[in-house]
């Protein structure tokens, strides 16, 4: 319903990125933006067919290799030379007239006799031959490139923007029985064809059926059997299964801890293999997938996928986060980010890292244990990778909180003093003034460094649970940014949303880890290392604490550099912190393994503890 056609080749004119809009009544899947551009089996059409007619008046085919090996017929082979059937010659350009004369004259007559192959192409002074070469006893032997290589060379010819200049020269030759070019070449000057006309359509020289001619027959053949996998946006490899029952605000299952974290094979045979988690090789995946031929009649069983999950349609009412606590002012936002959210992220990352180091590595599983518990090594590997990914994610969140802070400072929102990097844990929970004991509520427990016991994991689940008071901190920030349009620099809303949405994923991951490790509830030492938290002054943990200090120092320097827009220094600092993290990780692993003695857990927060003799 636009006022003008929507030519495909319009330059981008919108910022922020606007989605292309189909005409009234059409779904977005009718748009060229919805089709995979690259390009062959089973899809909408084969863009390589454009190059078959790259030169006005000529039609080529890009012949591959015979089953018996190269026989000299491979390459860009001329199918025909015909002026009359090419509407481009109705256009008004001097070079077209000259080319028409050539093709209607001796050059065209020569091309009509025998088999001709493209020998070389030349544009902007660069001549590229469609032959490789070798030398035998000082004689040069020409070896025709096979068709696909020739196609790539043709594809690399540019669309010259001056319609009146013939910028492209090509030469065709015949070949002898051994594939060597022979005789005089036919040399033609012209231009590479434009593949879109003024209305945004592929020109009508391409006849109906021509642009899909090279595709699979039937389309289902390669839709199942192609090994390319470049088309996941239309033909997914992996998906999450459908949600059965209630869902969380992110659309994943509320009841099933595995649904949100288990990739299943989209191409699996429906009915017999409903919940098969996907394999890591094509060979292993094959048995549970639809067969060739079977696909021809059963392809409509494949599920549609939205936001990575199989579904029958769009959600009826997209779940929206409810309103959370509101901030009264920007100063309050800054105070909360500085005093609550940044320390929260750092504390959680340390707590989760401690739990990570408390888990045995798969290579610590003895052969006897492997026999008795066949899944143990896999479960440990999964739990460790997942736990580590959440810990690193919390570190990233701390960085983003700092990024929000320095962005606010650069935009003039800081009340006074300016941005100072915030990398520190919460203070320990205050002791109950009556009992003198620290509280035993969730907020206090998740500040403590604990091994990954089931009770610790249960607390991790709770702290990440959507709508938990800690989780809702970010929902409040999101709400505040949403309610104050134009007040803050661009991008802050995205950062807040990202942290908020990650929280739901953390919840799902922890639920899954807890479920995995619950099978070993009666045998905790199968999954946990025998470690104890080292005292802050233990000499054995000094190197590790030194690495941690290096990490924190490098991150502070890096954040400060980014705040000051000094990107080279920021990059150097981030790389320095990453090196320190690797050293820290190696040392923490060494201490936790114990090597025959009781393992040590690192008292991460010792760096921030006030010495007992300090006033």
């Amino acid at each position, binding site marked *: 319903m636009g006022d003008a056609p929507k030519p495909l080749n319009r330059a981008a004119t919108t910022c*922020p990125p606007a989605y292309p809009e189909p005409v009234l009544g059409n779904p977005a899947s*009718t748009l060229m933006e919805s089709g995979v551009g690259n390009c062959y089996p089973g899809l*909408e059409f084969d863009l390589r067919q454009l190059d078959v007619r790259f030169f006005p008046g000529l039609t080529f085919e890009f012949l591959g290799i015979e089953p018996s090996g190269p026989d000299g017929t491979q390459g860009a082979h001329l199918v025909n030379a015909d002026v009359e059937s090419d509407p481009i010659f109705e256009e008004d350009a001097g070079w077209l007239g000259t080319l028409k004369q050539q093709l209607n004259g001796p050059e065209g007559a020569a091309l009509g006799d025998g088999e001709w192959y493209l020998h070389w192409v030349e544009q902007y002074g660069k001549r590229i031959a469609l032959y*490789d070469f070798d030398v035998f006893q000082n004689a040069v032997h020409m070896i025709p490139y096979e068709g696909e290589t020739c196609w790539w060379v043709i594809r690399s010819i540019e669309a010259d923007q001056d319609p009146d200049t013939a910028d492209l020269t090509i030469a065709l030759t015949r070949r002898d029985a051994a594939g060597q070019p022979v005789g005089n070449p036919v040399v033609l000057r012209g231009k590479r064809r434009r593949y879109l006309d003024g209305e945004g359509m592929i020109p009508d020289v391409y006849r109906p059926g021509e642009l899909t001619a090279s595709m699979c027959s039937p389309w289902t053949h390669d839709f199942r059997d192609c*090994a390319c996998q470049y088309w996941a946006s239309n033909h997914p490899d992996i998906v999450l299964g459908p949600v059965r029952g209630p869902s969380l605000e*992110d659309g994943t299952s509320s009841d099933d801890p595995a649904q949100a974290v288990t990739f299943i094979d989209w191409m699996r045979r429906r009915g017999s293999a409903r919940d098969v988690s996907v394999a890591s090789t094509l060979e292993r995946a094959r048995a549970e997938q639809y067969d060739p*031929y079977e696909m021809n009649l059963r392809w409509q069983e494949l599920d549609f996928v939205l*936001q990575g999950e199989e579904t029958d349609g769009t959600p009826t009412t997209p779940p929206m986060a409810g309103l959370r606590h509101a901030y009264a002012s920007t100063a309050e936002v800054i105070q909360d980010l500085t005093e609550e959210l940044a320390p929260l992220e750092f504390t959680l990352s340390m707590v989760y890292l401690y739990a990570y180091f408390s888990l045995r590595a798969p290579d610590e599983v003895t052969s006897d244990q492997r026999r008795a518990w066949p899944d143990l090594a896999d479960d440990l590997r*999964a739990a460790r990778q997942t736990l580590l990914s959440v810990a690193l994610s919390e570190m990233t969140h701390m960085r983003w909180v700092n990024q929000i802070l320095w962005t606010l400072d650069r935009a003039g929102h800081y009340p006074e003093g300016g941005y100072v990097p915030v990398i520190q844990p919460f203070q320990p929970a205050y002791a109950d003034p009556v009992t003198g004991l620290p509280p035993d509520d969730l907020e206090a427990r998740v500040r403590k460094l604990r091994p990954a016991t089931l009770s610790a994991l249960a607390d991790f689940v709770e702290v990440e649970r959507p709508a938990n008071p800690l989780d809702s901190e970010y929902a409040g920030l999101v709400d505040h940014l949403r309610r104050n349009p134009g007040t803050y620099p*661009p991008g802050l809303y995205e950062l807040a949303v990202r942290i908020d949405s990650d929280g739901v994923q953390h919840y799902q991951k922890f639920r899954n880890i807890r479920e995995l490790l619950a099978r070993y509830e009666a045998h905790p030492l199968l999954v946990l290392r025998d470690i104890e938290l080292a005292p802050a002054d233990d000499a054995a943990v000094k190197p590790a604490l030194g690495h941690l200090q290096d990490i924190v120092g490098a991150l502070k320097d890096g954040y400060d550099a980014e705040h000051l827009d000094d990107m080279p220094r920021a990059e150097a600092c981030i790389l320095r912190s990453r090196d320190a993290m690797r050293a820290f990780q190696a040392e923490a692993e060494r201490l936790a393994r114990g090597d025959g003695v009781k393992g040590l857990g690192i008292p991460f927060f010792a760096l921030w503890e006030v010495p007992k003799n300090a006033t």
Partner: protein
Amino acid sequence: MIEEEKNCASRASGDGPCADWCCSDPAKGQVVGLYFDPPMAIARVGSAREPMDAYRWKIDENPHRGMQTMIEPAPSLHLESARGDGHWPHRLVIKTPHRITFKDRRGRVRPVAPFFELWARVQHPDGRILAVPVTRRFLEARGARLGDLVFRVDAGNRKAQSRTKLASCAAVAHVSFPADSYRPHRLDAISPHTRDQVPLVRPDAPLPLGMVQTFLPNDEDWSCRTRLDQIRLRFTPGKGDTFGPPDATIATASPRPPGDFEPAVTEYGRNHRMTRPENRILSPDTPWSGFNFRTGGTPKWPTPQDSYDGAREGSGDGWGTIDDTCDLMIEATLSIGGRVLKALARAFSGPPDFAPDRRPMYSIRDELDDRELPPPVPDLATTPGEILDLFRRIFETASLVNLDQRRSWALAGNAGILGSTTGPDDADWDEGLSPRLGPKSMRASDIPFAEITPDYTPGQGDTRVSTSGASDRLPFTQVVQQVHARMADSPVLQEFLARRPDRVRRIVRPPFARLADLPQRVGVQKPAQVPVGRWDLPEEESGGRRRPSDDNPPRYRDPRNVMDQTYDMRMPPYMRHSMGVPLSITRRQYDLLMGYLDKLETDARWRSNAAVPDAEGDHG
């Protein structure tokens, strides 16, 4: 004031400005051209009776899902029988569904059946050219009738023809009808043939490629931006069925994985019906039945050649099957005042888009832009948005890719291409190569390419096949999802690109070169230098700090160079182009990204202004 102008004036206070054509007198001006909008559209097969409703892409506003693309229902055009009995003629009415469903109650996929709007370019006495919907009244104002507007639709499925090189194996349909012929016009295709040829598709058993239809004008319901009496043509594609000769009944499937061939043994995998009985209508005695790409002398184009049912079992003889997909051209011809005006459009019928809220990072549009547009010039007003959109699409594609499977497959292929004598699983068969091409690819020793993936995958060794069990799920895939979800956010992306431009230059796989950048001969002439810093602001103006690069990553690949056909972890990692070589983003996307890096590195204005405003514009 004429009736339409009154209507326009009364509606202009609606929810948005009126279209330019709204208040103009339809009788005024000279018609200088006709066109269809859209000029090209994709139809998608399905056997449900009701086509897919309209939907559009938008940013999900739910903060618990993250900033990502979703689809939402859009105003859809439904058919309303003028007779009230469901029969044609139909007029179009607008309905907005409360949700999009992809299948009907019987599990049949709803086809995507695009509409094409017919527009005229009208020149006014002041020289302005206005786009105006073509309606019955528009025609009548110019002394023409609906019947003077003639549609011609030509559809073809030439898949068998392209292999046998015989037109008698094509399936083509032609229909021609005036704009006031409202019945569905079936695109029943047959094979062109001469007296001595056997047609693959016989005239008495045509191949149903779909149908086209026009609609009664709906004069009652239109806004100042939309006219339901505008002439529209709709293409409804075929069902996606397979057709074959009578012997294409049951076949034994290869149990091998995709891309592999079954050795010639006497027993294969499971048996399956390959066609419905009613679809065994093709002639059995044509060269398409039994076509075999392995036979010497058969044409070796198109490639890959094993792309038909039957190619991967036994001797490779084809079963002679084709489908009901096609591509077609629509032509509208109108005679006004002795002039003949024409409009053309194309449609393609393809498979469903099974993940409609996930967009390709390399779309048909990108490919056409890459072929047609001049090299991009970074523009502060548009480039940050384009690059953000690219990274959002990268995430959308990456979120559905099995990277573990890709990696194991690609690394095995490398060992085959380069002739590893110790097999693909020897951790050091690629010693000395960088990027690594064997089991150490994307592992700690794949420096300087691998950085965080080894850190995120602590349980993985230097193996080609990742360790992934029922609970330990696709370690590499998990990492790519986690990393790219962040890169879809404007401030994270912009900060990363500004801080680590050299990392991005190194880690993104370059596309194949432009012809003029290729060395004349591989390994003889030096490749053309494509310098970093092409888009730098002069240092005296920007105070820019170009960081010296410790290497000079290649800016393009050469299709003639075998090393440029091996798979490594550069982005997109291990993915394959449909032409059987490692995939890259397009040259145009790559050049724009590189230009953006230059700007971010050396121009403070770009760093401070490059964060893209939040998509909905109302979030602060």
